[in-house]
């Protein structure tokens, strides 16, 4: 691990990351670092390249140039499941779920990375496979409790109300035991009370020692929760800093806050 400018080793270093789609530059020479235990947010107007950034870090797509370094090792060129195995796990928006699995089945599936038995071992139900299953059950219960999903554990995902789906998405990601948890718009469409609860939830996750990275639209929640924020506009990073710094940054006000009413529909 190499020390960064503040001499705390960072967990994630995004270095000069660029991704083109044909003629369009979705992400343009973006760099930032996320430190362990931080809540780091990437914000920006629609089409600013936030979700492309997410996909790049999660190794779902490859950068045109630049690098993504996690715990001192590059993630570029890995398959998404390999990035997940390194500890980089993302959530999706709530329509991306296992529709026909119950809450319990979903979380147990997500426990995949913790299973130590090989495929063959699982097939023959070896001692290790049985231990995995028992451990999966135990851990799943724990996660369901954390996210208050116990009472819907036998409900199929497609029958769950929206609020639960987002919690289910986070439950899945937690079951994969991430070091860096990337949440895709966790507060979208929530009323203030729901947002409050969700903010508490994200803090609890961070308090468990998981570094959290958010992509968000909702400025208010982001300002309350984030340690540091990076702002993207048209694929470029236009600002980075604490919530206070961002709120007072003229570039950000011009690019983003100025159109907040329209963006957020407030």
């Amino acid at each position, binding site marked *: 691990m190499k020390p960064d400018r503040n001499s705390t080793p960072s967990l994630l270093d995004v270095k000069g990351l660029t991704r083109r789609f044909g003629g369009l530059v979705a992400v343009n020479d973006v760099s930032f670092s996320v430190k362990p235990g931080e809540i780091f947010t990437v914000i920006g107007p629609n089409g600013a390249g936030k979700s492309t950034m997410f996909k790049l870090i999660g190794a779902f797509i490859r950068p045109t140039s630049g690098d993504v370094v996690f715990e001192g090792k590059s993630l570029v060129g890995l398959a998404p*499941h390999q990035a*997940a195995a390194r500890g980089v796990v993302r959530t999706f928006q709530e329509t991306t779920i*296992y*529709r026909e699995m119950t809450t319990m089945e979903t979380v147990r*599936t*997500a426990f*995949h990375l913790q299973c130590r038995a090989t495929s063959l071992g699982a097939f023959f139900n070896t001692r290790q496979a049985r231990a*995995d299953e028992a451990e999966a059950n135990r851990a799943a219960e724990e996660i369901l409790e954390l996210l208050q999903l116990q009472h819907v554990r036998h409900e*199929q995902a497609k029958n769950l109300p929206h609020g639960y789906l987002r919690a289910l998405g986070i439950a899945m990601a937690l079951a*994969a035991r991430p070091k860096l948890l990337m949440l895709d718009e966790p507060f979208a469409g929530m009323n203030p009370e729901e947002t409050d609860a969700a903010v508490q939830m994200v803090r609890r996750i961070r308090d468990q020692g998981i570094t959290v990275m958010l992509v968000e639209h909702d400025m208010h929640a982001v300002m309350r929760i984030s340690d540091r924020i990076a702002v993207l506009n048209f694929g470029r990073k236009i600002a980075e800093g604490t919530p206070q710094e961002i709120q007072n940054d003229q570039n950000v006000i011009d690019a983003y806050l100025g159109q907040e009413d329209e963006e957020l529909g407030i």
Partner: protein
Amino acid sequence: MNDTKSKLLAYVAFAVLYLVVVPLVFSGSPYALGVFSMSAALSVIALGVWVTFTIGRINLGQAAFALIGGFVAAICITRLGLSFWIALPVAGLVSAGVGVLLGLGILRLRGVYFAMITISLSEAVRLAILNGGSLTGGATGITGIPVPGELSLFGLVLIPDFASVNTHRAFYFLSAFLLLASILLVWRLMASRLGRVFASLQQGQELSQSLGINITKYRLIAFSVSCFLGGIGGAFFAAMQQSIYPGSFVVADSISFTLYCFLGGLAYVAGPIVGAFLLTIAFQLLHEFQQYQQLVYALLMIGIMMWLPNGLLSLRLPTFGGRGSASREVTRNEA
């Protein structure tokens, strides 16, 4: 795990009926035993198709793998002089190997694309065998395959030479053994973590990747099991018929295997088996309507989709419930 236990119990009851009662009742009828043996072989092949359904792929290429299995076994026995007992696993493994090679490319395709490419595969393998020259015998295929010989280990005879016993009954027991072993294989697969992973691939590939699941690997596992079962079924078919032709398994058979799965019910491990036995036996009983066989097949397929989309097993037999969606959907709607 009460569900698993009762499922196991049902399987045991089924096994007793199948292994003791049926061969006793029909011991004097080679014809009936033949029909049952054929049903079992077709069940094994259709089980493979069912396994590909669990990863969300519609496999219309199973005829290709049954043909590969049949010809590999026939070539091993007649050209290389190997024992059937070696040729059988070799046939399954070669099929699985071909499946892995092809699967690396085609498993990335989804939905109708996968269906179209596998249907083309059924045709392509038939043509490849047709053009196989003296190795495959071309259009005339390979005939005069000897029945399985003795299998012994350290002088201990495990299985007698089929020619020296009641051959039909011997084939019946072989088919029964293969079917039960296949059921065991698929049931273990579905009951383990792998079954959950397969279901996750069906319902959200990207999500599975993000959770650290190597989707390429698990798709290949499912597909190679499918191809293995196709190959084993094909090899048994070649041994029992003592011949195999490029036309032994064609596109229409690939579609029939899918029909078996649907008729029994996609949500049940037993689905393809119920479907295969019912249809194969029904057509033997309706012998005089043979020229209408195709019409009956067609009306059945359409009728199932119109009125029984979850298959026969969805009507009752909850103890046979396996993984999957349709069954639960039905229960929920009725509740």
